[in-house]
């Protein structure tokens, strides 16, 4: 038997020697991760990945493994890690149920274009297809919800396949990549030469590296000729690390900007040019600006149905410019007049370069002035007003208090539902990668494991998870992970005793027949948190909330579960019902007109 390489003979030694390492398949998996610069792997062991776990164990000085309590948690944690850090998230799970449990997290990452590499164990190649113990067709099951996936049948292909997986996951429009590795391929007894190949080229995959300069010039002309322009930006700005370029461009032009749920924080939300989120629960001013604009500048956004509402009523007067790295996003739902395919950051940089050549007027042109007057008039409606005198804790008040207590310096993960919308509306994020939520798939249970990933990416940062009592129970087992790794996350539970968003739809569209949206038999969350070794706090009165949050965040080294009992009847406003036009909003009942049509 050949000698195992000493733990210190690897990546720290640069440049790599001419003598290739002799490694087993299992060691190749781990060495590949180390060579890719992976520091943290989220996973859960099982039969098919035991060889890999053994190799991992031997290299634990160079790569950290975080043991989650459910494979869904592993994928969400890796996802949260990726969203916060901009690096690729990595998971390691076993075959069969390990892989199927991971699917929800993979689909979540796919819908929001998050770079993940998910390594799944598989039964040994000779028994694939024989319905062996813990066998599923992982490549088949995950195919529709990955950017790409691989089944590695030969040990010799393992290193190249993992390298491809990282390249594909992180380049172009990012996304999850699954690498399915049969157990025999990782056999520790068989060693083959291994060499890391940092440079990769695939003949069938060449993502755009630059936007077409002619199109960019045309776009800038249209932008400068516009009288009522508006920027509409999405998650692609954050994924493409283009927040700084976007901010510079928007401020140079002086145009209003709105953002999707996924794009919040790319442009500072507390800046006056930011007119709020758009779409189903967007602000009145943002949706009206979209409806009235004559030049829509879409950047890294995908015209999702929650944003467009009824397509026939979407931006009826606008010339539409669309910047996106994925050609298939362009003219998918809405026909675009000036498409620019390219990485958002380079395209924005090119736009800025051209703008510097042409220069910007010293004063705002009169048309733009009039446009801002119109927007300010819409703003005056105060479409997100709520009852500040309420004796119950309003969820909006809870989010505002959270912002005050954390001074805006927070990584906030979210689950899915009303609390997610309240957080998006009432917590102004001024930096990218601070607001971490499942937008596309809308996965309840995402928030807590995602916070695990974020806290591991930034051990010293303030990390909170805003959730509801329904969502949090979907991945509650990760409280144990938080204990094991002493993660000082703060859970802010907006507990209204309902699946709030479901209840809201039932109130609006089903004549208040609350079919199964009441969560009966809720646990005592304080006792639950304490049983996992955490601190639990409960608040029921508005006057006590700020002090409770102060107390929670003051415990810098403890996980605190703050159960905030909120008004069970509060709804998220404004709201554009599904299938309605942008201009057809429900406004809060505190306002004289409940609905503007």
């Amino acid at each position, binding site marked *: 038997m050949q000698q195992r390489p000493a733990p210190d003979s690897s990546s720290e030694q640069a440049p790599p020697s001419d003598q290739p390492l002799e490694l087993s398949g299992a060691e190749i998996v781990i060495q590949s991760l180390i060579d890719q610069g992976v520091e943290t792997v989220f996973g859960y062991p099982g039969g098919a990945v035991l060889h890999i776990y053994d190799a991992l164990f031997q290299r634990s000085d160079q790569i950290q493994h975080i043991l989650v309590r459910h494979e869904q948690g592993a994928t969400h944690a890796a996802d949260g890690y990726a969203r916060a850090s901009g690096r690729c998230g990595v998971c390691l799970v076993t075959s069969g149920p390990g892989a199927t449990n991971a699917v929800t997290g993979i689909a979540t990452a796919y819908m929001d274009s998050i770079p993940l590499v998910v390594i799944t164990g598989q039964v040994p190649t000779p028994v694939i297809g024989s319905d062996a113990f813990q066998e599923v067709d992982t*490549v088949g099951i995950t*195919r529709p919800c990955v*950017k790409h996936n691989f*089944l590695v049948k030969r040990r010799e292909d393992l290193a190249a396949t993992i390298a491809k997986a990282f390249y594909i996951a992180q380049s172009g429009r990012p996304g999850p990549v699954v690498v399915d590795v049969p157990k025999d391929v990782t056999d520790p007894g068989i060693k083959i030469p291994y060499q890391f190949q940092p440079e990769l080229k695939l003949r*069938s995959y060449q993502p755009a590296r630059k936007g077409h300069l002619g199109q960019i010039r045309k776009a800038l002309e249209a932008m400068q000729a516009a009288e009522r322009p508006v920027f509409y930006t999405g998650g692609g700005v954050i994924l493409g690390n283009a927040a700084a370029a976007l901010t510079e461009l928007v401020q140079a032009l002086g145009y209003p900007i709105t953002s999707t749920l996924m794009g919040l924080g790319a442009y500072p939300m507390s800046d006056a040019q930011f007119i709020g989120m758009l779409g189903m629960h967007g602000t009145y001013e943002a949706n009206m600006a979209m409806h009235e604009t004559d030049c829509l500048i879409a950047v890294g956004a995908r015209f999702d149905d929650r944003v467009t509402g009824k397509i026939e009523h979407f931006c009826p007067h606008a010339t539409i410019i669309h910047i996106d790295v994925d050609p298939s996003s362009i003219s998918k739902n809405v026909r675009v007049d000036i498409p620019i395919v390219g990485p958002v950051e380079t395209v924005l940089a090119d736009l800025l370069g051209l703008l510097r050549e042409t220069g910007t007027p010293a004063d705002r042109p009169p048309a733009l002035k009039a446009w801002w007057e119109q927007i300010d008039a819409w703003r005056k409606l105060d479409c997100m007003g709520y009852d500040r005198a309420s004796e119950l804790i309003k969820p909006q008040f809870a989010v505002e208090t959270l912002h005050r207590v954390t001074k805006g310096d927070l990584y906030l993960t979210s689950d899915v539902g009303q609390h997610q919308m309240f957080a998006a509306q009432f917590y102004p994020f001024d930096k990218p990668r601070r607001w971490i939520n499942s937008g596309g798939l809308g996965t309840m249970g995402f928030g807590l494991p995602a916070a695990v990933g974020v806290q591991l990416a930034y051990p010293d940062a303030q990390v909170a998870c805003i959730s509801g009592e329904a969502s949090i129970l979907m991945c509650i087992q990760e409280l144990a992970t938080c204990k094991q790794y002493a993660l000082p996350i703060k859970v802010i539970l907006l507990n209204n005793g309902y699946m709030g968003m479901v209840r809201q739809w039932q109130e609006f569209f089903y004549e208040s027949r609350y079919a199964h949206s009441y969560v009966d038999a809720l646990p005592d969350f304080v006792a639950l948190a304490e049983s996992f070794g955490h601190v639990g706090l409960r608040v029921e009165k508005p006057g006590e909330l700020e002090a409770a949050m102060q107390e929670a965040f003051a415990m810098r080294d403890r996980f605190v579960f703050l159960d905030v009992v909120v008004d069970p009847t509060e709804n998220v406003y404004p709201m554009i019902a599904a299938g309605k036009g942008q201009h057809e909003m429900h406004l809060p009942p505190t306002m004289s007109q409940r609905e503007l049509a």
Partner: protein
Amino acid sequence: MRHILSMLVENESGALSRIAGLFSARGYNIESLTVAPTDDPSLSRMTLVTSGNDDIVEQIKKQLNKLIDVVKLLDLSEGPHIERELMMIKLRAQGTNREELKRLTDIFRAKIIDVTEASYVVELTGTSSKLDAFMQAVPEGLITEVVRSGPSGIGRGEKALSL
């Protein structure tokens, strides 16, 4: 409108199901699909016939191009091209029908490739509409089995779909 798409695809297991899965997941039509390896054993050539309005077909092409396994894609319907489909058709050939079917085969420049006392198997190559026409010309009730390959296509002229 009908479109005939020609693709060079990585000759790997799973490529076909990725393409078929894309069409079912996104609700696109597949009228026919043919696939076989090329002179380069690492590549398969696929011909896919689909239909839809311009926006849908544009999106189909973008989505196909986005698949990692699709190396190159060409919409043959955008230029002059040749389409051929192969059909083998089993016919009930007894009594007077025998002569009639033989004549029909000659008229269509088809070939009889299997004969029994009671049947013919006829091989016919051409455009899909020619194959349709042959089937319509066969007297009622004589067709017992039909197998069609679906069209394959190639562009006219010197330009080639290759790497």
